Each structure stands twice: as structure tokens, then as C-alpha cells.
């Protein structure tokens, strides 16, 4: 195991490498097949470099554990806007998830519909490319259009374009309180319609999920208490046509509900393949119909994100071929590709980028691009 302690170490290790390497953060989100004979761990690149609560900004080294980030943010009553999920119960992994891993996989939770994805809050990145060159892009300010946006490119590139060594984020104040409105016994089509109506309202819904097997549709409101209660009342009136409702106004209970949804805890006992499917919300029902009957489904992002636990070997992409969107195989051991294939012109671009950033094919080969 290569265990660099500084960015310079990373650079030297890559320059001196003769074999491809697997890039590892906390190891809680293994994905796909990577053809490497050695592992480089970012665990040694750890620590918060700068935290300015008054500027809503944090900068941390890539291997900093999420627990450390969350602790610092909690102390100042702030949050990472995109609510990164913990994959451990879903994937049955154990470890200290790192902030660099969150960026590499562009991990974004339920609040994505309101506050954007990981890539939207990421404002700066340092990384070492496949030639061992240390590079930076973005910075620590919220608005920055100076040159090309490699910050976005690095988010979700799964370590295939470079080893991320440092990341900077913009933050949000932690909501004062959280409440849920729960709709009961809706089928997926009606549930998506209800969620769309809620998300099309001015009541700032910050989470909209539907647990298919429980027929439970959960809407989240966050903010100052009086405002949350006001909006809860308005939502109930708005959604009256959808029938049976209940609510959670206890902050702890509401947060626990969303923690379960965010980390897809409902799937933890499932031993089939796990897919993450991104579509237009109104296409969610069609995707569900195209999958085998014994598939477990959880909808998030108002129906735009479908978590599906399918029987092993189910070709979800073939099943949803007529629907525009994409599917990622989060866990599966079959012959199916991890990532949705790019359309031909984009595949050429992706391969070209990969060639520019990692000409020797050292970083997570076989995973992407």
C-alpha cells in the first residue's frame, strides 16, 4: 500500500510508478472493476486546512475523515449543502469515509434537489495527475469563472483523472429545525405527481422521496420553526387530493427518517445488484415497470433518482433503453459495465481526456473513460 503523507509524496509516487494503482479513500464506496496491482491510500493526507464560518467556506485535505468534517461543521452550526450519503449500510462496508472520496464519487444526497450536487458546492480542488504533476483549479471563493472549470470535471471522475489531494467547499447554515409530511398508500405514479406538485410550490421542499414497498412518500421542510410549520400547513392544503397524511415535527425523528432514506437503509438486507438510476421524475414509473417484479425500489429527488435492488445480472440499461437517463451499477459482480456508456462522440472526448490526464494509464485503470 502506498501511503503518501503530502501532495509531494503523491507526485513522486506517481512519477516513480511502474504499475497501475487503485486510488483509495476510506474504502466505504468500492465500485466497479479496477485493474491495478497496488493501492494508493489518501488517508495520510488528512486535516482541515481552513474553515471560515463567516464566509461559509471550508478547505480540507482529501483524506480527512467525514466524521472530522462533520464535527467541525456541527460546532459552527453549518452543513455541507449536498448532504453526502453514507454508503456503509447499503454496501456492507466499514471504514472512515473521506471528503476526497465524496468528491471522487460526486456523492450527493436528498438535498440535491434544492441545494445541488457535491460538484455544485465544490469550489476548489488540488490533485496530482497521472504524470505526477500537482495541479489546482478553482479556489476558496464561491464565484469563480477564471479559466476552465476542472473542479466539476474532477468531481465524479473516480480517481481516474488524478489523485485528489485537497478540496474546498461552500457551506450552508444548518437548518434550525426539520419536519416531514408523509403521504400514505400512493402508487409510484401518484407519488411522483404529488412530489412534483410539492417541488413546484414555493414552500422550499428540501427532500422528496418515495419508498415503494412501504407506499410511503416523504417530503422534507427545513428552516426556522415558525416558517417550517407554516409551510407544512400550506403543503397539506396543496396536497389534500392525495389523501392520507401524517407528519413528523420532532426534529430528531425527522432527521432520523431522512438519514434512513439518504443511506438507503431499506436495501441493506438485499443481496442482489444495486443500481442508481437518474431520469426525468415523470419517467420513474416507466422505469419501475421495466424492471423485474421482485426489484426493490426507493425513489429520491422527487422521482428523479431511482435506487433499485434487482436480481443479480438484471440489465437495467437494456430494460430502460427507451427512456432517456442513465444507470450506474453501484454493486454487482456480473458482466455488466459499472457506468452507463457514453454516446459515441462523448466517448471519444472522455477517452481523450483520460489520455491527457493519465497517459500511462496508471490511475484506477478500467474504471472509467
Amino acid at each position, binding site marked *: 500500500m502506498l501511503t503518501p503523507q503530502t501532495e509531494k509524496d503523491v507526485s513522486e509516487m506517481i512519477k516513480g510508478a511502474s504499475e497501475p494503482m487503485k486510488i483509495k479513500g476510506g474504502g466505504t464506496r468500492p465500485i466497479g472493476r479496477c485493474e491495478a496491482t497496488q493501492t494508493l491510500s489518501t488517508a495520510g493526507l488528512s486535516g482541515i486546512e481552513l474553515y*471560515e*464560518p*463567516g*464566509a461559509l467556506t471550508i478547505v480540507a485535505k482529501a483524506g480527512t475523515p467525514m466524521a472530522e468534517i462533520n464535527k467541525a461543521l456541527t460546532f459552527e452550526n453549518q452543513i455541507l449543502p449536498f448532504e453526502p450519503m453514507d454508503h456503509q449500510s447499503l454496501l456492507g462496508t466499514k471504514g472512515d469515509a473521506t471528503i476526497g472520496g465524496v468528491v471522487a464519487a*460526486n456523492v450527493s444526497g436528498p438535498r*440535491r434537489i434544492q441545494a445541488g*450536487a457535491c460538484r*455544485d458546492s465544490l469550489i476548489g480542488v488540488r490533485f496530482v*495527475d497521472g504524470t505526477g*504533476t*500537482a*495541479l*489546482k*483549479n478553482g*479556489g476558496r*471563493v*464561491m*464565484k*469563480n*469563472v*477564471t*479559466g*476552465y*472549470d*476542472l*473542479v*466539476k*470535471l474532477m*468531481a*465524479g*471522475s473516480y480517481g481516474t483523472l488524478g489523485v485528489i489531494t485537497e478540496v474546498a467547499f461552500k457551506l*450552508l*447554515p*444548518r437548518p434550525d429545525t426539520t419536519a416531514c409530511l408523509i403521504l400514505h398508500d400512493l402508487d409510484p405514479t401518484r407519488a411522483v405527481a404529488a412530489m*412534483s406538485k410539492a*417541488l*413546484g410550490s*414555493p414552500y422550499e421542499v428540501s427532500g422528496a422521496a418515495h419508498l415503494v414497498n412501504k407506499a410511503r412518500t416523504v417530503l422534507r421542510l427545513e428552516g*426556522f420553526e*415558525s416558517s417550517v410549520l*407554516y409551510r407544512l400547513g400550506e403543503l397539506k392544503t396543496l396536497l389534500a387530493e392525495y389523501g392520507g397524511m401524517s407528519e413528523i415535527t420532532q426534529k430528531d425523528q425527522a432527521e432520523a427518517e431522512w438519514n434512513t432514506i439518504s443511506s438507503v437503509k431499506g436495501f441493506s438486507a438485499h443481496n442482489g445488484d444495486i443500481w442508481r438510476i*437518474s431520469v*426525468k*421524475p*415523470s419517467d420513474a414509473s416507466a422505469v419501475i415497470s421495466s424492471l423485474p417484479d421482485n426489484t426493490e425500489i426507493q425513489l429520491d429527488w422527487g422521482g428523479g*433518482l431511482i435506487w433499485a435492488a434487482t436480481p443479480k445480472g438484471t440489465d437495467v440499461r437494456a430494460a430502460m433503453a427507451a427512456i*432517456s*437517463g*442513465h444507470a*450506474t451499477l453501484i454493486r454487482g459482480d456480473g458482466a455488466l459495465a459499472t457506468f*452507463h456508456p*457514453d*454516446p459515441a*462522440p*462523448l466517448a471519444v*472526448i*472522455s477517452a481523450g*481526456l483520460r489520455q*491527457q490526464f493519465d497517459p500511462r494509464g496508471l490511475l484506477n485503470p478500467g474504471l*472509467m473513460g
Partner: protein
Amino acid sequence: MEMPAPDASILDRKARIVARLQTVLPLDSVIHDERETRAYECDALTAYKCPPLCAVLPSSTEEVSEVLKICHDEGVPVVPRGSGTSLAGGALPTADSVILGVARMNEVLETDYDNRFIRVQTGRTNLSVTGAVETDGFFYAPDPSSQLACAIAGNIAMNSGGAHCLKYGVTTNNLMGVTLVMMDGTITEIGGAYLDSAGYDLLGLICGSEGQLGVVTEATLRILPKPEGARPVLMGFDSNEVAGACVSDIIKAGVLPVAIEFMDRPVIRATEAFAKAGYPDCEALLIVEVEGSEAEIDEQLGLIMQIARKHNPVELRQSTSPEESAAIWLGRKSAFGAMGQINDYMCLDGTIPVSELPFVLKRIGEMSKEYGLDVGNVFHAGDGNMHPLILFDANKEGDLELCEAFGADILRLCVEVGGCLTGEHGVGIEKRDLMVDQFAPEDLNVQMKIKDVFDPKWLLNPSKVFPLAASESRRAG
């Protein structure tokens, strides 16, 4: 700002190139008469002008593709153009280039409220995107101050922001998909009406690439439900430091205003003389706006005013009606016009960490004395995006150059304190040569390697973004 000398062999081939373009476009879509090409000689950075070889105004993605195939084949540089409102010279042509304007492509292609998106042709103006959905209670969030005129194509090219990005983000955070035509004419789709595109985030790379990677002809944009209401509070302080500390305290208190605007004394005085908004005569003025229902607004403004009082404001005025809101915004919205009444001005766009605000304002004041040029500051304080307005006299010999040197020093200062050269206007030609102050040679090189992948012949808007010396070998290739 220097531009590369035109390629004489292209100038010689003008007749042939125009004739070829006329085979794929209607006659009135190819503008080649020298009197008419002047209309395309500059954008909103009017200090620099050069008529193009010709301008084309295609009306479909397919026509754009045909144009690019011909230019690719002929080796002719192409400068994409939205509405020509760039303050950075992003759409400035060279004499050997073809301007590709998307102004005739301005249709709404699809509106979907259930899935909260709109798909438009990119020649459509920013404000008319909101215009297409506002009667149904929706809006498109990025709101650059040129929104009446600027096109979505240019917004995407520059990753434009606006006054409300503290809450809603900039263009890249509201862009879901594009139809991209590459320099060789290949048409491709990136992303779509769903969140998060597959594979590498090429959408994020395209947005803000200043028309150097491809021509975006259609865009899928996220639309949002309009808030129930919005109201500002105006507060005046007797120093920039105190105003800066107040901004920081508001943010730390857990309120997320939709906008925090800052004006310093020179701008306050200019706007008072021009618009008579009734602002207090003080060192620094903040306008903080929040959204929600009436009760929610009252609660948030109450909290914000409570924080402001701790900083002993010389004035604290909460709006209680649309008329009062308009009065508070009047001065801010006329700030640029007011400064323009005094003299010509250059508008900068550097961004700084919010904590550096007092120091940077103090330094700008000192530099203003050294250069002998007045400067006013009006900017989005919540996100640190400054807009120093340097006053100069365009008719006075050497004043423009002096102003540019002053501007460059301010931008270097922004970089020194941990910020960047441009927050929302883009690099264009204006900040091209300052890129070396923000980026190491390898950081610039990796960006140019990306252009190599998308546009190997370096024909798309080639003389922008990168210092000419840095890009020279590639452009010559």
C-alpha cells in the same frame, strides 16, 4: 490588449469561404459586406474593435454544424457570439475569423413544470426564459444585470451569475443539459432533463469554457417556483470594516439571504446625485433581501436587523411594501448608470474571500490615490464578488492604459488574498494576460490540453482565455 495578426491566406480566401458558407445558409444569413460586418466588430468591451471576415447567423443546430464543418475544413477561426454583451471581450473577432451568432435561434422548445425544466435555443435572452414561465409561477434563477439583452449561449459560455446566486447558484448550477456542436461539425447531447449526467462531468466543463470547446445551440435549464414574496432591508454604516463584519455575522447566524449587496461611499454619492433613492450619506451601505411568506420575511428581517443593530448602523430601514422595496433597490440598480454619468468607467469582477473585504477595500482606496483615478465599489457581498468601477476619460490620452494598469493591480490583489480574477464576467481578452498571476504554467497547460481534446486545431475562439504566449504554439499548429 494585443490580438494575433490575421492569417493573410484566410483573408485572401474570403470570397471562397463566403461562397461556401452561402451554400449551406440562406443568403441573408451570411454577412460579408464590410459596412455590415462592422456591427460585429466588438462586444460590450468597446475599447477593442475589429470587424470579422464575415458573420453567419444560422437558424438551426444543423446549420451551425454545416458552418463549422466548412470552417474546420478551411482552417478558419470561429468566434461564437450570443448577444455581444460580454464585458471581457469574449466575442471580439479577429479579421480572419467568422463570427457565429446564435441570435436567430431563440425558440422555446419545451416547457415542463412537472419536471421543472425548460429547453430553449441558446440565442434566447436570459430574461425571456423567465418570461416564458413566469405566468405559471416559475423563474430561471441566474440573473446577470444584462439579462434583458444577454443570451443563454453567452451565459453558458461565461458561466454567468447575478445578484441572487448566494441562494440559487450561477449558470452551471442551473444547467441540466446542452446540445453541443463541436468544431468538426459533430452534434452531440450532454446531460438532459435529469439531474447529474453520466460519465465525466463534461457539462460542467463546457459551462464557462468561453466558447472554446464547442458551440452550444440548445440548453435544458432548471426552472424554480417563484417565492411567495421578497423584501429587503437597507442598512448604512460608518465604515467598510463594520459593514463587512455585519455581513459575516448575518451569514453565521444561519439566515441565508437571497442577496447581500454592498455599496461604498463614492457609489452611494453618485447614485444619490443620479437617482435620488434617499440613501444615507455614509461610508458603506448594505441591501439584504430575504424571501418567503410575509410572516417568514418579517421573522428573517427581524433577525437580520437585530444583528445589524449590534454594529451601530447609521440607518436601518426595513421595507414593508413593494414601493419601499423598489425605493431601496433603486439606487443599487442605477449604480452603474450613475457612475457612467460621472465619467467613462471600467467594471472589474474579481472575487475575494468575504473575510478580506475590509482589507481589499482599504487597499483599493490607497491605489486609487496612487493612480489618481477614482473608484467606486458596488458588489455582491455575500459571495465576495466585487465590482470595482474605475473612472477614467476615454478621450484623454493614456487614461485607458492607466485605468487598465490600475484594474490589473486590483485583480492581482484579489488573487493575493485568496480570490480570483473573475467571478462572473469571464476572462475573454481582458484578463487573459493576468492568468499567469492566478495559475502556474502547468495549471494553464492542463486547461489547454482539454481544448486540445475538443478542438485539436484550436479554431474556436482561439485568442481568448489563455495568454497569447502560452497558447501560441497550439494556435499555430
